[in-house]
């Protein structure tokens, strides 16, 4: 596709369930990012992938959060045993990734609501 694609766009789950959020970056972009945006808050960095290098997981808030990127393309963010404070919009972005962080292209986000 032309842009970054995220699914699902909306997810409602019960506390304690696991959820998976998917991100399909722009073709040819080697860098992929996950951010979280809670109501009234700024974007919170979660994790960064660059090519086949080990990801920068420094922003993951707890060990319930994990992410994978298969084949240098599609990424899945998994939240285990969801809690109400996990409710937020999860945004994925990609960039060309050559050298410095350039322009980030964002998807429309996955809105997660934990009841």
């Amino acid at each position: 596709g032309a842009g970054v694609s995220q699914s699902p766009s909306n997810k409602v789950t019960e506390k304690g369930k696991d959820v998976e959020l998917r991100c399909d970056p722009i073709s040819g972009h080697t860098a992929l990012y996950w951010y979280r945006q809670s109501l009234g808050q700024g974007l919170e960095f979660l994790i960064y992938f660059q090519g086949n290098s080990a990801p920068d997981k420094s922003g993951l808030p707890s060990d319930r959060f994990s992410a994978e990127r298969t084949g240098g393309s599609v990424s899945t963010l998994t939240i285990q045993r969801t809690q109400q404070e996990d409710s937020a919009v999860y945004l994925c972005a990609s960039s060309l990734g050559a050298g410095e962080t350039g322009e980030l292209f964002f998807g429309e986000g996955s809105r997660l609501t934990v009841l």
Partner: protein
Amino acid sequence: SQKIEQNSEALNIQEGKTATLTCNYTNYSPAYLQWYRQDPGRGPVFLLLIRENEKEKRKERLKVTFDTTLKQSLFHITASQPADSATYLCALDFRYALNFGKGTSLLVTP
């Protein structure tokens, strides 16, 4: 710790006027700074990037300044239009990602 501050209060201006948004940062020496626009329910969209050795950058009705001594960037929209109403985010490079401010909401009224 690193901190990025943007006006939390919404900025209301009249159509045709110049909107000026501020981004201040502390405990930081960024190599560059970016501005994004975010509409409700949408992902942020890139507007401009300015490097530490650049004082000013322009793109159509947009102008960004970057003062590394004051640790401040100003974002100007000239001849503002109601369609410019959105939240504007500044972001600074952080390792290989970006750290974002919380954004300032701009409302342009006819």
